[in-house]
């Protein structure tokens, strides 16, 4: 059975990890570009046998372990891309543009949801916004007040209720009142 000693493993990680983003999937898997699926798979299996996190469960060095896991995740990604024809074609194009990794870096055309979209009443929305601004300034008192107003306009909103209790909890904590420094007796 193949297998690395812990010294070999540490040396391997130290060598690969800093350069991870400069290595192509081919480099990482140690196969010539254009290798067919069977070659890629054999290479991946060999690497997996040495690098899989389960192999190193008892490893004490946490940093080494984490870096190893990141390397291994990238190896998996390379295997996945190089063995799926459509992904591989996309990767070849990316490589030509000098990219080493196949990622969707183009910003998605659709935006993320605005939490306040779930609030319907315009007044509730207004006070909710004010409350959020207060929260950002750690003005817990102001936040509690604004969220309470928002709640009177839209009592059914789970979001308002949640934010109100967050603000109340912050206010209730020692030193929470208006962000004043805790008093020493």
């Amino acid at each position, binding site marked *: *059975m193949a297998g690395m000693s812990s010294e070999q493993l540490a040396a391997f990680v130290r060598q690969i990890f800093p350069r991870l983003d400069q290595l192509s999937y081919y480099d990482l898997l140690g196969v010539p570009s254009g290798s067919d699926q069977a070659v890629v798979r054999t290479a991946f*299996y060999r690497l*997996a*046998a040495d690098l*899989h*996190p*389960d*192999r190193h*469960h*008892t490893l004490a060095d946490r940093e080494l372990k984490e870096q190893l*896991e*990141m390397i*291994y*995740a990238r190896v*998996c*990604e390379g*295997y*996945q891309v190089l063995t799926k024809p459509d992904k591989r074609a996309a990767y070849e194009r990316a490589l030509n543009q000098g990219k080493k990794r196949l*990622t*969707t*870096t*183009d*910003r*998605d055309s*659709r*935006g*993320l*949801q*605005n*939490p306040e*979209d779930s609030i319907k009443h315009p007044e509730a929305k207004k006070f909710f916004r004010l409350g*959020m*601004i207060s*929260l*950002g300034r750690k003005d817990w008192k102001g936040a509690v007040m604004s969220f309470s107003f928002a709640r009177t306009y839209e009592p059914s909103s789970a979001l308002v209720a949640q934010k109100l209790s967050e603000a109340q909890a912050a206010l209730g904590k020692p030193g929470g009142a208006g962000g004043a420094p805790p008093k020493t007796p």
Partner: protein
Amino acid sequence: MAVVGIDLGTTNSVVATVRDGQVVVVPNSQEGYLHPSVVSFSPDGLKYFSVDAVARRILDPKNTVYSAKRLIGLPFRSDEVQKALVRLPYELREGNNEQAVFIGPDRTYTIPEISGLLLGYLRQCAEMFLSDSVNAAVITVPANFNDSQRRATVDAGRIAGLDVLRVLNEPTAAALAYGLGQNMSQRIAVYDFGGGTFDVTILQVENDVFEVLATGGDTFLGGDDLDSALLSILADLFNAEHGIDPRNDQAARSRLLIAAEQVKRHLSDFPEARGDLKNIAVGSSGEPLALRFHIARTVFETAIRGLVGRTIQACQDVLASAQLAASQIDEVIMVGGTTRVPMVRAEVEKYFGRPPRTDLNPDEVVAWGAAIQAENLANAGESLPSRAVLLDVTPRALGIAVTGGFAERIIDRNVPVPVEQTRIFSTSADNQTSVRIQVCQGESRRFEENVPLGELELADLQAARRGAVSIEVTFKVDTNGILRVRARDGATGAVREAAVNVRGAMSDSEVEEAAERQKYREASNLPEVPQE
């Protein structure tokens, strides 16, 4: 100190360990190896476990919890829990954070607590049998368990005071137990038809490397459904004879259901079943009503043909997603008690064109694999002849909600784990200073057609025009199949992580409290296993 593998099943659980290079299965208190996954409570807080709790499903159905695995890690209002509710005689309600909680005689219990009690019992059984302390385990889950179900299983383990070394997929464990692929390359199908779930998994096995190519199935299809089919037959017979539908009477229904399960097993070995069930219900003048029945296997087979057909359909789907034909499979492994049904074996053989492997006990084989993996992890597999590497994949695609009701995929289905992917999104409104990131699982482009898993919020964004702020969302799935989500404010460059609030999950502090309580209870020497 020993480590164990635990197959925490819907119906039965099995605990095993590796000793001197051999797998040993921990027996139950009645000469068997299956520990029924049942916990029963009595008003004074005393609990009955497993074999001692089974009879209480009839005696005290309201306080006897079984099939907890059908509920674990699912929000109370999920379809699955609502569907299970109809069948379960014990009471559940919605607790903190959308969890389903059991209403016990003394207090309410979360589902991970129930499973935690069971795991604690299993741990004690193992400790007694091995004369050694046990504090770490590999616990298996169905391959199609999602992120929250896996987390909840880990929580259950923690409550039982176990260090959960790994959450392992059941089919992968089964393949490991068969020790296939040594010095050769094979494609294997694992067909697992248990008590509550069905799944089918295709693996490539080569020189100790087990790669999952595809996995699929139905989390709501199992031997229980076969029992229900048989219950219908028995209830119709009873109704025809007495003019009373026993399905409308909770106690009568429970009795018939238990009879149905026994009849089902009998029909696995014999072409017909006859019997006389006494005291099923009470007649109008208080007289006990009995049922005499005679059911041919063929009648049963007609009733379950559709259910078995669904498993074959799932096999077809999974093979299609692995881009393989049934004839390209070298071995088919049978797992789960329901694969003892002759018709199931016959249909599987017909579909794959080869007789399936049944040489290892189908209800123990998963625990065998879990024990082997536990040994691999904890003791670096020193006492084992070979050390397998298990390469699992994501069971479902994972994504987030974007405006317009759409879901944007971040991680595909069936990709090897661990995996980490980042995508960049933006705000949808002018001066939007926080974003809500709703996480879902599923392949649909429409958000609401997927299963919502939880959400996180990233606040304190710079106020700017819509679309001007970029937010990087990173999904990371580890080797346990557990998802971690990170959202980063691209504008300030500051890494801000936000934790996902997982729907239907216990909070960390709740888990710790429950673990403390259980530790205390075990230490205070309450009679855990009632002596009779």
